[in-house]
């Protein structure tokens, strides 16, 4: 889906550096994301792509530079952090469902406690999303009783019930059995077509080619190359990217 060129900038990132102790994981990252844009981040392991999207909702704290989400600057102001986290949903590699709660309780926990919705409203909207991801019949089970693909779809429904505008996916299919990858990618593609702003770290090249508006290649904590998906794969410029693509595409 093409992005409206006049769309507003929803995320602005300027010269972001991030350190883990002495180690500099991000070395000056710049990125502007428009409303409704779908971006896939590629890169070898340790390139800083996960760290980068985790900095956007403050799971990692950046040391220098500015991150602005919907006009709200990300600082130490806990109210702003809370505000940003309400607008930015995240789906993890390991699902991170709460094992002591049922599927429906997992989904309604944050809407009830953060958005202060009534239980009825939270369950209604939660059920709507659970139906969207195709597993409404699992609402009263516990996460441990579901397959990996189902758990990841619950995690997506849990995130969407909070009604965020931006979705962050951190390798959402990496922990799944191959036959379950497809069901999760289908849900992600649907969301991309519906106009959600998406930043996804993934190794699924099919998804990157077919759905992404823009692909970003990271290594050594920097963005090395960025471009529209077709151009990116057909005509890579950076040597590091050429090597990376030859390694993953020839398998």
């Amino acid at each position: 889906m093409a992005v409206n060129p006049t769309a507003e900038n929803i995320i602005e990132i300027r010269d972001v550096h991030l350190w883990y102790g002495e180690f500099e994981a991000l070395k000056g990252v710049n990125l502007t994301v428009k409303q409704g844009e779908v971006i896939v981040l590629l890169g070898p392991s340790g390139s800083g792509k996960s760290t980068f999207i985790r900095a956007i909702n403050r799971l990692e704290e950046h040391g220098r530079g500015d991150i602005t989400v919907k006009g709200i600057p990300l600082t130490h102001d806990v109210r702003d952090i809370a505000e940003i986290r309400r607008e930015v949903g995240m789906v993890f590699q390991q699902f991170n469902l709460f094992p002591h709660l049922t599927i429906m309780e997992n989904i309604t926990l944050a809407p009830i406690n953060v958005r202060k919705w009534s239980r009825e409203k939270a369950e209604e909207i939660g059920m709507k999303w659970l139906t969207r991801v195709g597993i409404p019949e699992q609402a009263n089970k516990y996460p441990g009783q579901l397959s990996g693909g189902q758990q990841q779809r619950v995690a997506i429904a849990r995130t969407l019930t909070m009604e965020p505008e931006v979705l962050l996916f951190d390798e959402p299919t990496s922990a799944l059995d191959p036959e379950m990858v497809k069901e999760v990618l289908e849900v992600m593609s649907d969301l991309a077509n519906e106009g959600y702003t998406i930043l996804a770290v993934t190794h699924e090249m099919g998804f990157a080619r077919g759905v992404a508006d823009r692909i970003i290649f990271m290594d050594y904590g920097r963005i090395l190359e960025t471009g529209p998906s077709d151009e990116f794969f057909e005509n890579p410029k950076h040597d590091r990217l050429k090597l990376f693509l030859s390694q993953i595409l020839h398998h």
Partner: protein
Amino acid sequence: MEQPNQPDISAAPTQYVPFWRDGRVLGVFGQIIFIIVMIVIANTLGSNFASNKDKLGEIHCADGSVDEGYRCAYDFMQANAGFDISETVLPYKVEDSYWQAFYQGFLNTLKVGLLGVILTTIIGTLAGVARLSSNWLISQIALWYVEIMRNIPLLIILFMLYFGVILAGPDLKETMQPWGLPIFFNNRGLNFPWPQFTSSAGIFIAFLVLGAIQYQVVAIALDRREIRTGKSSNKARWGIFSFIVIAMIGWFAASAMSDTEGLLVTKASRIREVDDIERIILKRADVGLMSLVNDLPKEQLAEAALTVCVLRDSPSEVNFISQLRNRGIPYSITRFDRPDQAVAAYGEGKCEVFAASKSVLAAERVTLENPTSHLLVPISETPVVWSVPAFEGLNIAGGSKLSPEFTALLVGLVLFYGGTLAELVRAGIQSVSKGQSEAAQALGLSESQRLTLVVLPQSLKVIIPPLIGTYLSLIKDTSLGLALGFSDMYRISFVTINQTGQALQVVILMMLVYLAISVVFSVLLNWYNAKYVIMVER
């Protein structure tokens, strides 16, 4: 049909295993050895017990006959204990039996144990969470607290608190009263306001129980309606509403029905109802308003004060004194242990009114010289009065009191086991994966919501099993109260053994009671663990 490709299992040669390497044989053999060892131990203990029991000499029954077996082993407990207990939950007199004394000790043990468990849970959880705080100062304080408590023996902590803090506190003349609140601290203990039951409390409590039942009934009824009509309703709100209504009815019913309390006054005093007292005092002090009376100089105030006789710790004392206090009427009070002493003092004119239950007053009035010149004035009462401590001469009366021994024991146990529990809580929290916290944060939950809704419930799985052991240790360690002179079950047993020489019976009794407390506790906690903690993890 023959299937040559498939090996015939039954025809496979059975490999010979020598019996000393056969796991099945070894398993059975191990159990047999264990049973033999147990029988030998039980037999040794049993014969030892029997021979020692013979050495103790004859056991005399309460009726004077000699006991051949174990029939009258505990009859000695029916005799008068003859010692006083400084601090009891229920009324106790020196003339009560050893059974009574033991029971008071048991209640004191339970009181310290249960309060200790509740407070330890609070302190330990806070300290455990603080240990992991990202705030350096808070986590360091928690770390030092845990390390200090873990590395000092409990007995030394108790001595430190008792001799070093509480007994070294201010004496009676220098009683501390923080911020002018009605809380008094000195080396005789801590007095603080506390609700006290009067004689009509029974009716009120019955209504409270009724209200609790009604709460359940309402919840079930609304559930049924919801299933029938699909209309959901706020069960908690309606349940609490009906509970409050019933509790209020109970309060007024108890207040209205109580006509057991009264005052004995002389006709000449012109007191016909409680309101008269106020007028008489005003007149005596020669001022217009009750608030002005208390501003009078000390001697004048003492002259104006109402002199009251009561029975020590009776409901009438609590009720009448709280009424006087609420009206601001100055009084001086004399307490008696027996009604005849009180009425004698009243007869001699030492006090203007004698407050007690009506039946006591009616019985005692006839012993006075001229019964018809004395009146019985009814006084109202509420089921519960808020009793506030205050100085009465040199003593502090009213409210509730924590003795130095009880306070030192409770605080010591809570601090010590709070340190142990803090480590359990920390381990439990750290057992929950980091991804759980990240998911909670990404969903926008606040720090406290993350902890209470996501992390702590999951950490219970790790915390509860060792927690049961910690609670049981705490309850058993209440026996260290012996060292401080707190009258717990162990101390009472100790005194009983010294006085009667019946060590064997008393020790067995004590062991059984500790065992019973422990079993009840661990059954309850294991039930909780199985029902709420393990089941939800699938």
